[in-house]
C-alpha cells in the first residue's frame, strides 16, 4: 500500500523565504487577511508537489509539516535524519555517538510490547563493561534505613522477594524536546524516546521494607556503574532521585529481565530501576546503589534546570537558573502514530486511511485520541484500548477519510484521564527543554 518515498522534494525557495524573513513570507503566502491566495497557494502546492485540499483551514504562520520536519525514513532521502546501526538493533535515529543516544522512529513503535531491538537508547555517560558474572552483581540500599541491605542479582533471581512482570512505559524526560521554539539545548528528540517493554523484577518497596525504611527516609538517590564521559572516576554520569512515595509505588521495580530475557547491556544489564511514567533518568541503568535520604537528592542531574520545569512560565529563550522550578515528575500525555510514516506517498484514489498508534500519560491514563486531516477544523475520535496493566501504553486505532487526492497532514492528539490534551504548540518553555508534548503532524501525499 504505502511506499516509503519522500514527498516531492520541497523546493528550497519557500523554506528559505521563511527562514530569511518569516513575516514577509507569511504576507506573500497568506496575504494580509491570512487567506492563502491563489498564486501563493499554487506555489506552496508546487513546493510540496501536491494540491493542498484543506488549504483554507491551514493556520496562518504554520509551515506545512513536509517543509517543517525531515522525513524520518531511513532511506537516506534528502533531509532525512542520520540513522545508526547498532548490533541487535533496528536502524535508529542518531542523536549522538558519545554519549550514545538514539531515537526510535515512530513507525517502529507498532508492537504492543516493544522488543529490545526497537528500544531507544539514552546515555549520560559511557556504557560500562559487561559484568563477568551477572549473578554476583551487587545492589546496596543504605542511608535512612535500619539495616543496610546488600543483595545480588542472583538472590533477586532466586525468589527471595516476589518477582513481578509488568508492561511499563519508559520515556526520556526530554522526549519531544525538538518541538520547542526557540530550540533548547540537548538531544533534539521527536516523539520516539519512549518504549513499553515487559519488565520482570522485584518491587523496590519490598527491598525498602526488608531494609527497614526509616520515618526520616524522604527521597532516593540512585547510582549506576556507567563512567562519566570525562573518565573521571569521582564523577557520576547521572545520579538522580525521587520522592519516597514514588519509590514505594507497587510498579516501581528493580528489573532483571526485559521481555523474558536478560537485560541487554546497553539497556542496563544486569539490573536497573524501572520507574514508569516519570522521566527515564529515574530508571537508573547498571544500578549499584540506592541511597535513602532525608532531603531531596543532589546528585548529577538534580537541581538547577535539570529535569525541572517552571511553575511560573518564563519568557521563551530567556536566561534562568531554575531556582524556582520544580522537578518534572509524571510525564505529560503524548501519542505516536505507528502505521504511517511522515512523508508516506499513497496511491491515487486513496479515500480511506486506517491509522493506529499508542498513547500514554505518565501516572495517568489516556481517555481519548482524536485525529484531524484538515488542520484541526474537525476531529475524529479514535478507539482507545485499556492499558494491559497500570503504566502500560494504550493502543489507539481508527479510520479517517480523505476527500480528494493531494497533500494532507494527519494530526493526532491524545487526552489524559484529567481531560488535559496535547496542546497545539509546546508550552512552558524551559532552558533544557522538558515536557514538550504538542500535537504531532505527519504529512502524506495521495497520488
Amino acid at each position: 500500500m504505502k511506499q516509503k518515498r519522500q514527498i516531492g522534494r520541497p523546493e528550497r525557495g519557500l523554506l528559505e523565504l521563511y527562514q530569511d524573513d518569516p513575516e514577509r513570507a507569511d504576507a506573500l503566502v497568506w496575504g494580509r487577511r491570512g487567506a492563502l491566495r491563489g498564486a501563493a497557494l499554487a506555489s506552496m502546492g508546487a513546493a510540496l508537489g501536491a494540491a493542498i485540499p484543506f488549504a483554507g483551514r491551514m493556520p496562518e504562520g504554520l509551515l506545512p509539516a513536509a517543509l517543517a520536519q525531515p522525513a524520518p525514513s531511513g532511506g537516506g532521502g534528502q533531509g532525512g535524519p542520520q540513522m545508526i546501526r547498532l548490533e541487535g538493533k533496528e536502524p535508529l535515529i542518531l542523536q549522538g555517538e558519545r554519549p550514545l543516544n538514539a531515537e526510535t522512529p515512530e513507525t517502529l513503535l507498532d508492537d504492543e510490547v516493544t522488543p529490545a531491538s526497537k528500544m531507544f537508547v539514552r546515555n549520560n555517560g559511557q556504557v560500562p563493561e559487561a559484568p563477568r558474572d551477572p549473578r554476583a552483581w551487587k545492589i546496596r540500599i543504605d542511608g535512612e534505613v535500619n539495616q543496610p541491605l546488600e543483595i545480588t542479582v542472583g538472590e533477586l533471581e532466586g525468589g527471595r522477594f516476589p518477582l513481578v512482570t509488568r508492561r511499563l512505559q519508559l520515556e526520556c524526560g526530554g522526549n519531544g524536546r525538538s518541538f520547542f521554539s526557540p530550540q533548547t539545548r540537548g538531544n533534539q528528540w521527536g516523539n520516539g524516546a519512549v518504549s513499553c517493554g515487559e519488565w520482570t523484577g522485584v518491587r523496590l518497596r519490598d527491598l525498602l521494607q526488608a531494609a527497614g525504611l526509616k520515618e526520616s527516609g524522604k527521597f532516593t538517590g540512585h547510582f549506576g556503574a556507567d563512567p562519566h564521559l570525562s573518565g573521571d572516576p569521582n564523577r557520576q554520569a547521572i545520579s538522580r532521585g525521587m520522592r519516597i512515595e514514588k519509590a514505594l509505588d507497587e510498579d516501581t521495580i528493580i528489573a532483571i529481565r526485559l521481555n523474558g530475557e536478560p537485560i541487554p547491556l546497553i539497556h542496563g544489564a544486569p539490573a536497573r530501576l524501572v520507574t514508569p511514567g516519570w522521566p527515564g533518568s529515574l530508571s537508573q541503568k547498571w544500578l549499584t546503589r540506592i541511597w535513602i535520604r532525608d532531603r531531596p537528592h543532589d546528585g548529577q542531574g538534580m537541581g538547577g534546570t535539570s529535569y525541572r520545569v517552571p511553575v511560573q512560565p518564563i519568557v521563551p529563550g530567556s536566561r534562568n537558573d531554575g531556582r524556582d522550578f520544580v522537578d518534572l515528575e509524571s510525564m505529560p500525555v503524548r501519542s505516536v502514530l505507528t502505521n504511517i510514516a511522515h512523508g508516506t506517498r499513497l496511491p491515487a484514489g486513496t479515500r480511506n486511511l486506517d491509522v493506529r498508534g499508542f498513547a500514554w500519560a505518565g501516572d495517568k491514563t489516556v481517555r481519548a485520541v482524536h485525529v484531524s486531516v484538515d488542520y484541526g477544523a474537525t476531529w475524529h475520535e479514535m478507539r482507545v484500548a485499556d492499558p494491559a496493566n497500570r503504566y502500560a501504553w494504550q493502543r489507539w486505532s481508527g479510520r479517517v477519510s480523505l476527500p480528494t487526492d493531494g497533500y494532507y497532514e494527519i494530526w493526532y492528539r491524545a487526552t489524559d484521564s484529567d481531560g488535559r490534551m496535547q496542546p497545539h504548540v509546546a508550552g512552558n518553555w524551559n532552558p533544557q527543554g522538558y515536557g514538550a508534548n504538542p500535537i504531532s503532524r505527519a504529512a502524506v501525499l495521495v497520488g
Partner: protein
Amino acid sequence: MTLTRALVVCLILTVVVLFGQKHGLWGVREAARPPPPTPAAIAFQRAQQEAAAREAAAREEAARLAAVAQPEETPDVLPPGEGREETFAACTACHSTAVIRRSRLSRERWDELIDWMVERQGMNPLDAEHRRLIVDYLATAFPEAPPAAGRRAVSPFLTD
C-alpha cells in the same frame, strides 16, 4: 595331599599371571578407562563454557559499542571558521560533535551552555580569551534558527 599341592600351585600361578598382567609384563595392555563424568561435573563444565561464551560475547559487545561511541572525528566535521580547532578540542574531550551540529542557539545561550558544562558537567574552565573564541565560533557556525512558525514565534517580550 597331591590335590592340595596342585591347588596351591594353581593359586600361585593365578596370582603371578594376574600380577604380571596388571603391571603390563604380558597380555594385552589396556589403558585405565577414566570413570564416566558425574552429572554434577557435566553441569559444572557446561556452566563454565557458558560463562566463557558470555564473557566473550560481552567483550565483543563492549568493543562494538566502544567503536560506535568513539567516532573518528576530526575538526573538519565542523563548519570552517575561526576557533573551529579550539572548539573541537574543548568539546570532544567529553562528547562527540553530533549534539553540537544539531544545535541552533543564540550567542547568549551558547555562553550559558559553557557555564553549565563547567559548573554541572565537570568541564575544565576556559580562560576568558579562549572562551570568547569558542563562543563566537559556536554562535557563528550554529546560530539560532529563525522561527519557522512565522512572526508569532518571535517573542515581543524577549529582551534578555
